[in-house]
């Protein structure tokens, strides 16, 4: 078995990863569900009773700001995390 301090460091790295992921999930949930509930759950109509829909890039604006944009931001953050922020461990020998 390798020196204990090395194992302890790996455990700390794992806990750090898990904590960041938990916050990442909570923030995404809060934004997407909150935004879509506020702007996507009420059918807007003009005085003649016609449905009014604002679109961005062909999709409803609530879907653009509530889902598409945060999804792209999440992908960027995930890439940054994977390429720059996540710490490497030396591989373990298979037992």
């Amino acid at each position, binding site marked *: 078995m390798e020196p204990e301090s090395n194992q302890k460091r790996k455990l700390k790295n794992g806990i750090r*990863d898990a904590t960041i992921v938990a916050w990442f999930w909570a923030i995404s949930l809060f934004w997407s569900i909150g935004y879509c509930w506020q702007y996507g759950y009420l*059918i807007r*109509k003009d005085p003649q009773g016609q*449905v009014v829909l604002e679109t961005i890039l062909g999709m*409803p604006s609530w879907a653009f700001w509530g889902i598409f944009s945060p999804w792209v931001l999440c992908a960027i953050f995930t890439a940054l995390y994977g390429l720059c922020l996540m710490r490497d461990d030396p591989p373990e020998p298979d037992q």
Partner: protein
Amino acid sequence: MGIEITWESWQVLAAFGLYLFGVGYLAWFSHSYLKKDNFISDYFLGNRGLGPWVLALSVAATAISGGTFMGFPSLIYSNGWIMALWIAGYMVVPMTGMIFLGRRINHFARISGSVTVPDIFRDRFNSPILGICASLFILFFLIFNLVAQFKAGGLLMKEALRIMPAQAGVEAMRDIDKGAIEIEFKYGDNRRETLSVQKPQVGSTLSLESSSVDEKLKKVELVFLLEGKRYTKTVNFPLSKIQIPFLQIPIDLGYFLGLIIFSLTVISYTTFGGFWAVTWTDVLEGIVMLVGVVILAFLAWNAVPALGEKTGLAAATEHLKNMSSPGSEPGALVYGPGPGHFLTIGLAFSFFCLWPLASAGQPSAMVRLMSFKDTPSLRRALVLVSSYYLLTYFSLLVIFICARSIFPTQYLREIGSEGVPDSIMPALIRHLAHPMIAGVLLAAPYAAIMSTVAAFLLIISSSLVRDLFQRTLYPQASEKTLKWMSYSVTFSVGLIVMLGALRPPDFLQYIIVFTGSGQGAAFLFPMTAVLYWKRATRMGVLAGMAGGFLSLVSLYLLGWMDNWTQVQLGMSQGGSSLASTLQTCLGWIPGWGEMRHDSFAPLFLCGLDPVVWGLLASLALTWGGSLLTRHDETQAEKFFPSR
């Protein structure tokens, strides 16, 4: 019985065959890769040698299943833009699915020598009972899921074959009741068959005005009249059936042949090549899926009928805005909660929990994480998976929003004239693409199903061979015995599931959601405690696993009971005595008596999906159970060193 296949279908099959040839080659290549001296670890875990590309594509290909390519498209087609919120949780799935447990589970499996997920539970507490329980829960959910996946594979292959109906003539047509028409067909050998056809459901009862039969195309066109407005419905001649000796009801010949082809392909390569075959074919399948959806998005975008200056997705959204779905007001396809209150805000919240958390708790995902080579491989794979999901899910949304404007009603369950929503994916492919291209595009959903089935087959086989046979019943088994056990068990499980899929259940997407959320509820928090919490105990983890499993299954059972009660009470005034008793005893439960979209749907307690309650119960029991029982300091020290 003669089988008539069109020239167009032969072209589709030729292109499809090329893809299957690639899969076969990879299986053969993987088989030669298997080492003789460490068979079990190699067959089930690939000797922990996955690099970034293979890891990324195998994680993505395993997660994307028949549900993604058959069930999800049908839901977008039926419910419109609200499905973007339904699937939105996938924006965090790469992080939750790969990073939350990834580094730690890989490290843990290496120091304990674990090969399977039940191994981890067993090795952490030195508890065979925990390993056996984990194996049984995995078997329960995965066998359910596999039957649904096999069904999807059979349906897809049926669409590729498109066997023509047998030659027949229409003998009689009867308006049997308010909701249906009965058509009687007569074949050349004097055999007769009656087909009951649902009338278009537009809120009022329609009466049949006229009909015309096209014996060459083997179709009947029915025209209904209501308040001066005409509704047409096209009915295909009945498909050829085949009688299976042990089944009482004849089954559709196209589906039967499709299921046989699908099953033999996937069972053979999984049995023959083990983990390496599954991961290498995952790579091919992952590439085929991505290329397939991107090409199909391009074709669908261009096929949308222009509306003024608007084209593509903008025109499709405008079409959806102006459409009224059956039973819903205009605008329901572009705003929440969707037609028929499909996605209430409570369910939207539930699905944002389900996808990220349940995917982290899936044993199939955990096995992939146990097998990567080193953390740089994990980091790079994370980036690839994240881009992969973004591209795939947005392409699917675009494709099937466009599909709704291309086929405004043809594939709707209530008024569709061409088919049911589940067949929209293969139908759209065959509508938009040249047959040779269609063959390649049909390989995309087929690949999605194959990769998931192969991974699940291997997990079931590893649970039986490694966890139950080798580690519980017969620890002295030789490498040779284990090798033949692994081959024969993988093959037998595949065959049994194929037999189960001969008469498949109707609820593809709900079964996939049920099994996915069940595994998440049973395994996520117990596994988190095993990996991160020194104070966790065997009893706490067992309670968490059982609690998550039981609460989720109970809510599904309550939902089925409620659905049955509603049908019984609706059929006769007062209903049967059992239905009345259930209504009296269980009517107080929040969510009881609510209308559901499907008879497989669960009870949504307080408007939330069972996965939320399952996860909460599992968390509370893992935590509380561990605090209330004594933990083994010496055992924990191996995995949680104090220095």
